[in-house]
């Protein structure tokens, strides 16, 4: 079974520029998550999709971050404009949906973003 694919692996940009990350979840996984993991911290959920609908985006800084999953499969996360504090690893995860919420989340290897 192919895992969660993310690209790019690394990205370096200057502050105020824009950047986009791409995620392709495991085939058949209806639920997709984007997390932000700042160095030395645990992952923080930014947004959760169920198919192509948003389930939770309460911690997404909506003035600069946006995400979409138009066809209910792959997803993009965009930051515009980037700030220094956005330097982090952006992790994408996917899971099956059974309604109980205990399905394991499968993570990609992340995109490491550095803001200069």
């Amino acid at each position: 079974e192919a895992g969660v694919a993310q690209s790019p692996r690394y990205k370096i940009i200057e502050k105020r520029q824009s950047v986009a990350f791409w995620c392709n979840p495991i085939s058949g996984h209806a639920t997709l998550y984007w997390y932000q993991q700042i160095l030395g911290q645990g992952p923080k959920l930014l947004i959760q999709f169920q198919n192509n609908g948003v389930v939770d985006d309460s911690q997404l800084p909506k003035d600069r971050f946006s995400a979409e999953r138009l066809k209910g499969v792959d997803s993009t996360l965009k930051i515009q404009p980037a700030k220094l504090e956005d330097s982090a690893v952006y992790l994408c995860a996917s899971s099956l949906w059974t309604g109980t919420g205990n399905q394991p989340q499968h993570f990609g290897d992340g995109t490491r973003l550095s803001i200069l």
Partner: protein
Amino acid sequence: TQLLEQSPQFLSIQEGENLTVYCNSSSVFSSLQWYRQEPGEGPVLLVTVVTGGEVKKLKRLTFQFGDARKDSSLHITAAQTGDTGLYLCAGRGAAGNKLTFGGGTRVLVKP
């Protein structure tokens, strides 16, 4: 907001020693998961505990969920260098699907 605190933040031990990592909260969780993350990779699920007081064993790793479902521990017996990594606990609230991660414990097992 449900918070999970992990302790210690960093642990360095010699191969063959035992270690315990703690995950504590003031909130009740419907389930709790433990993940291990290696540098440059995403977290990988180790175990899910659901019932208060539950104990699960995975080879040399023993996971315990507190009776009140507010805390958990991970114990590694006879640690090996391959156990080196960032250990993350993540709790799921009663309301739904959202996982809240702790800050992680970085474990270094020296040969």
